[in-house]
């Protein structure tokens, strides 16, 4: 291997170790190519010259670390991303959730909350929202705060409205927010049964007795090791017969726990947890 690249890899390994030791955030088992691109990006944004310089600053300057964390993790998300996913939830999953006395949903890695509000809207339209509690978590405090606020750029709404229609929305999308200037604010009634919280999938523990866990486009950033660890966490947080929903390009195929799940909707990557007796 090119010596430059080798040196860079060493610096990155040390950087991740330093972050873990100092702040407890564990990026050591993230996919390396992505991490490297983010570090390089941050290097030019922060006008630092070397990775080791970033490392030094991070250790001694908490605010610098906060900035790093914000730029470093990826928060790209959308409302009703992959409309067919929401459609299947509506047509196939909802009928199985409907008889339950109470529904618990965990949105892990929810970023700025667009997905969470999408789900709330869907449940509202199915008349299930009142008996649902949604736990929306991310390990990044500032995105969780944004999710709580539910304020989004107005210019995105056209795409979101289109997605909403394609997902089988039955109402008028505009009813779910109020707009002022360039922004929209999600209506309060959508927030009533959502609990927003800080939670790190790499280091925190289980969230009990969930009927559905949605974690989309988070596992793609992890290596196999961490993927397995997180899938175990999900398994241990699910009720028997609960659903695990992953991103369109994520799957359980390579996971140790594949046999404990049944493919429920293969293209949409929805899995049903069969229960502990399949271990």
């Amino acid at each position: 291997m090119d010596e430059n690249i080798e040196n860079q890899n060493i610096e990155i390994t040390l950087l991740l170790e330093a972050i873990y030791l100092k702040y407890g955030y564990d990026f050591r088992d993230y996919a390396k190519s992505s991490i490297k691109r983010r570090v390089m990006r941050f290097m030019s944004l922060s006008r630092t010259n070397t990775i080791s310089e970033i490392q030094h600053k991070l250790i001694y300057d908490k605010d610098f670390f906060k900035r790093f964390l914000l730029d470093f993790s990826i928060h790209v998300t959308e409302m009703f991303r992959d409309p067919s996913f929401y459609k299947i939830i509506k047509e196939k999953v909802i009928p199985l959730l409907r008889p339950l006395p109470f529904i618990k949903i965990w949105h892990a890695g929810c970023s700025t909350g667009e997905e969470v509000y999408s789900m709330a809207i869907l449940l509202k339209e199915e008349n299930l929202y009142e008996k649902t509690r949604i736990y929306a978590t991310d390990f990044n405090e500032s995105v969780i705060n944004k999710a709580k606020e539910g304020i989004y750029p107005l210019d995105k709404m056209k795409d979101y409205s289109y997605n909403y229609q394609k997902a089988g929305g039955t109402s008028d999308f505009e009813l779910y927010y109020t707009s002022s200037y360039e922004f929209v604010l999600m209506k309060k009634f959508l927030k009533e049964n959502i609990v927003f919280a800080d939670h790190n999938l790499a280091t925190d523990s289980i969230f009990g007795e969930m009927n559905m866990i949605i974690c989309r486009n988070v596992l793609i950033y992890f290596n196999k090791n961490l993927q397995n660890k997180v899938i175990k966490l999900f398994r241990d947080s699910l009720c028997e017969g609960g659903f695990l929903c992953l991103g369109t390009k994520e799957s359980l195929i390579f996971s140790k726990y594949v046999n404990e799940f049944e493919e429920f909707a293969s293209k949409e990557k929805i899995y049903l947890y069969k229960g502990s007796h399949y271990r």
Partner: protein
Amino acid sequence: MKYEAIVIGVSAGGLNALKTILPTLPHDFKIPVIIVQHEHASSDDFLAHYLNDRCMLTVIQADEKIKISSGNVYLAPPNYHLLVEDDKTFSLSIDEHVNYARPSIDVLFETASEAYGNKLIGIILTGANSDGSIGLKEIKKRGGLTIVQEPSKAEVATMPSAAISATQVDYILPLEEIGPFLCKLEENL
């Protein structure tokens, strides 16, 4: 073996370009081929099926964590960046668009170049933007082989022209000659 992977970046006019090059590669072609074709975010896997029906090699959408291996042509899935890890497996990401594109050619080329160094062949084909220019430059810098479709005959010349002005590329070839050229290279490995 000298070359271990081929990366191809293509945008507008890509269907025709890929359907010209890929079917000329024999079933025992030893070098895996990895492609970013710019597509609409909501595209499905039509392109992979379409090309697979016309090729001797297996054309599939790239999945994360799979080992890159010969006999296959991998296409970046629509709306995801495709990255190559040092251990020659794929990663996917939904990071911001790069050059207004996701998947972006630069993202594939730069990561592949880090992983394969001088054992990589990079090819830029027809397209209406300049994605891929920086990535191709990286490939060249690390000693890889660079090929660009001759702009004057390309369906859209912008992308190949941009690549040529950014890098002293090794070969500028008309579309029809790229496939046979790759076959000859592979035979001599």
